Structures are given as structure tokens and as C-alpha cells.
């Protein structure tokens, strides 16, 4: 049993129907140290301490204390981030900016029985495109600065996913206007995200999150497109929602079609089922298993999961941008980013054309 096997079994703890097994005996010290390090890195300490408390993961007293220490550190971060989240949301509300809290705190309170199961390391907030610049101003008022400069003035609001901001306390906030950069992000119908909501309470504050079906859609985007190698927590989020959240399946199917995101959702659910060896068969998992990706979908997914660069995603997004003028503005922003030294513009042109070359032949095979 490798460290990866043990940590995957930890991350699925509490899900019905998983065939992954936890160790039957306490791990030797080196294997335990590696496991604990991976648990902390993957932010699954909530499931570990639950498995230990239930007696499902036998450990020594020292190991139990070490796991508790890791989890307490993780929960300290979560609480500090939630306090920051409340401050940000109050400032957005004061300026009349609509918002939805994504992932982290929202999932902790809405998706899991106990918010302590879900650790997180930053906060994510979605705002309408039309209010994006105003939301940026709110963050700047709080002393936040962008981690990476905007490509071109107004780029994020029109074409981007959003930006990552860092506040003086060191906390990070991802301010989104859509879920991901590139073609899949541009195909999301942003108005759908603000048509419904769910509420959760942090302290004495009621906060807004996405509605249940839109939340599942975002979890699938995060699991399938968020990293080259799928991370355990997003996959757990997907499995948790599919198995334990009341969902309107017809609405999920409609969103998949409207956002051209069947491939994303099917891939995320399939990955979750494979990673956690889930035997439970529910209509969505059956649909995901049977869904066949075409070449175009495989090519688009590979932009997010292979080593292909940002420029390839950028090139692939072009067909999803409506209108010639907008396409031209998009290309201009990519080619001549604000503040870039002139000597680098040639490199950038080459990178974008390389992105187009890498992506377009793949699509061409469809």
C-alpha cells in the first residue's frame, strides 16, 4: 500500500460504497510521516481525524496527536480565512455588488455534515462581469494587490477568469467572473450563476453561495480543469455532492448542454469514481461512465490537463468569444499586454501562435 493509496483512502472516508481500504495496523513511523505530510498538503486532515476517532484508521497515541495537531492548524487557517471572507463580503454588499462564495467555506458549510471536514487555503468569490472592476476597487480599499498584473486593462472583466489578490495579512482571494480561463470558462452562461443561490452562516453573517446544481458544475470544473493532476479535495467535493446532495438532475443536464460542459462534468465524475473506487451507482455516475468524449472535447480538456501553456488555452478560447471586434480586442490584449517590455512582445506573439498550432491540429482531427 503506497502513501498515495493511503491518502486516497483517507480522502474518501465517509463516502458510501468505496472499495479503498485504510491500513489495518498503525503505519511504521516513516510511512506515517509521509502520509501525514501528504494529508496536510492535500488538505484532507478532517477525514483523517474522523477515521482515527472512529477507529477505522488504527494509529499510535503519538500519531493521533500529530494528526490532531495538523488538523487544528488547518482549522485555524480556515477560521482566519472565514473572518476575512466576512469582511470582504460586507464590503461588497456595502457597495451593492452581487457575489457568490465559491468552494472553500461555502462547501464546508453546505456540502459536508461538519464544516471541519473541509479544509481550504484561500477564498474564492464570484462577481458579475459588470461589477468586476468595482469589486477590484473594494479589494484595493482593503489593501489588496494583484499577484499577477492584469494582461490588459479590462481583460479580466471581458475575457479572463478573474484575478488573484493578496491582502496585507497574507491571505489570498481569487476574485472570479467565471470558473476557469479558456474556452470552457467563456462558455459558462454567467447569468445562470446569479439566478439562484444558497445561503450559509459564518458567525452571525449570512453569505451567498451558488445554488446546488451550479455548485456541482463548478466543483466539476475545479476537479477536471483546476490542475494538471487532479487533486483529492475537488474530487471528494464532486463525489460528496453527487452522492449526498439533493440535485435536480434535469437541471444539471440542461446546464451541461447550455454551457457546452458535458465533457467537463463527465470527466470530473468519472475521475472521482475511479480515484475513490466508488461502487455506488447513481444516475449521474452512470451517465458519466457512458459519456463518450469526441476529439474536440478531448483536445479542449487536454489544454487544462497537459503541460500545454496558458497561450494554448488563450488561442483555444478565441472561437468562444462572440463578435469580430471582441475577438480583435482579445488578441490585441494577449499580444500587447499592458506594461510588457517591447523586447518581449515578439516572444509573446510566438507563444500565442505556438498555442494556436498546438491546439488547432488537435481540433482538426475531430
Amino acid at each position: 500500500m503506497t502513501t498515495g493509496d493511503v491518502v486516497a483512502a483517507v480522502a474518501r472516508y465517509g463516502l458510501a460504497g468505496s472499495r479503498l481500504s485504510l491500513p489495518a495496523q498503525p503505519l511504521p513511523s516513516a510511512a506515517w510521516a509521509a502520509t501525514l505530510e501528504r494529508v496536510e498538503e492535500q488538505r484532507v486532515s478532517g477525514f483523517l481525524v474522523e477515521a482515527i476517532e472512529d477507529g477505522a484508521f488504527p494509529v499510535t497515541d503519538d500519531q493521533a496527536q500529530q494528526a490532531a495537531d495538523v488538523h487544528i492548524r488547518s482549522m485555524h487557517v480556515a477560521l482566519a480565512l472565514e473572518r476575512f471572507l466576512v469582511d470582504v463580503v460586507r464590503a461588497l454588499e456595502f457597495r451593492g455588488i452581487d457575489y457568490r462564495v465559491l468552494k472553500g467555506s461555502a462547501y464546508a458549510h453546505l456540502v459536508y455534515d461538519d464544516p471541519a471536514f473541509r479544509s481550504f487555503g484561500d477564498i474564492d468569490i464570484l462577481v458579475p462581469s459588470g461589477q468586476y472592476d468595482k469589486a477590484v476597487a473594494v479589494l484595493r480599499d482593503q489593501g489588496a494587490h494583484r499577484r499577477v498584473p492584469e494582461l490588459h486593462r479590462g481583460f479580466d472583466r471581458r475575457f479572463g477568469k478573474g484575478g488573484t489578490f493578496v491582502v496585507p495579512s497574507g491571505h489570498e482571494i481569487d476574485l472570479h467572473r467565471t470558473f476557469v480561463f479558456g474556452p470552457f470558462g467563456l462558455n459558462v452562461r454567467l447569468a445562470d450563476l446569479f439566478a439562484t443561490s444558497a445561503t450559509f452562516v459564518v458567525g452571525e453573517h449570512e453569505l451567498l453561495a451558488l445554488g446546488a446544481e451550479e455548485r456541482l458544475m463548478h466543483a466539476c470544473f475545479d476537479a477536471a480543469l483546476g490542475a494538471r493532476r487532479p487533486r483529492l479535495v475537488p474530487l471528494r467535493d464532486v463525489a460528496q455532492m453527487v452522492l449526498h446532495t439533493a440535485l435536480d438532475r434535469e437541471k444539471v443536464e440542461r446546464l451541461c448542454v447550455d454551457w457546452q460542459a458535458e465533457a467537463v462534468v463527465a470527466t470530473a465524475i468519472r475521475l472521482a469514481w475511479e480515484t475513490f473506487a466508488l461502487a455506488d451507482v447513481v444516475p449521474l455516475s452512470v451517465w458519466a461512465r457512458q459519456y463518450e468524449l469526441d476529439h474536440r472535447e478531448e483536445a479542449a480538456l487536454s489544454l487544462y490537463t497537459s503541460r500545454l501553456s496558458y497561450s494554448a488555452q488563450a488561442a483555444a478560447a478565441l472561437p468562444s468569444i462572440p463578435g469580430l471586434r471582441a475577438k480583435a480586442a482579445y488578441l490585441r490584449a494577449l499580444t500587447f499586454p499592458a506594461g510588457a517590455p517591447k523586447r518581449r512582445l515578439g516572444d509573446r506573439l510566438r507563444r500565442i501562435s505556438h498555442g494556436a498550432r498546438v491546439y488547432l491540429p488537435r481540433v482538426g482531427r475531430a
Partner: protein
Amino acid sequence: MRGRSRGRWVRGPSVLWRYVPGGILLLAPGADDPVLLSGSGAAVWQLLAEPLQEEDVIETLARACAVEATVVAADLRPLLDEMAARELVVPVR
């Protein structure tokens, strides 16, 4: 025997918290570091989800622990004072 009534208490509304192994982790407004409540402190936090008279908290804990109310009161009052000083609990007016 139970001393002068000090009124009702409730959790501080802005306190953020999580269950963790061995107790409850609380982050009070303005505090940088969290507080880990265990044992009777955790029990008090759970009881004060709704406003309660201090005497009712004492009686509930005394029954649960099968000890004299006076013994519980002697421990509880400094604990509540400490929690109030940290804004973890607040008096209900």
C-alpha cells in the same frame, strides 16, 4: 448556596468555531490566535448555543457530571469570566 444570579449568557455572535479532536477551536473577534476549549469549556460552549441563565448552566453540568452544584459553580464562574474577557461569550441584556 448558588450565589447571586449573574444573568444569562450566550455565545459571542461573531465567534467562528470548529469541532476538532479534543474539543472546540474558537476564533474570537479581533484575536489572532484561536482558543481550544475542551472538557467543561467545550460543554459550556455547546450549552450556550441559546441564551441560558448561569444557574441553568451550573445545574446542567452538575447533573451531567454528578457533582454538587456548588463545586461546578466554583469552577464555572472564573471560566465564564475568562470566556467573556475573550469575547467568546457575552451577557444577554
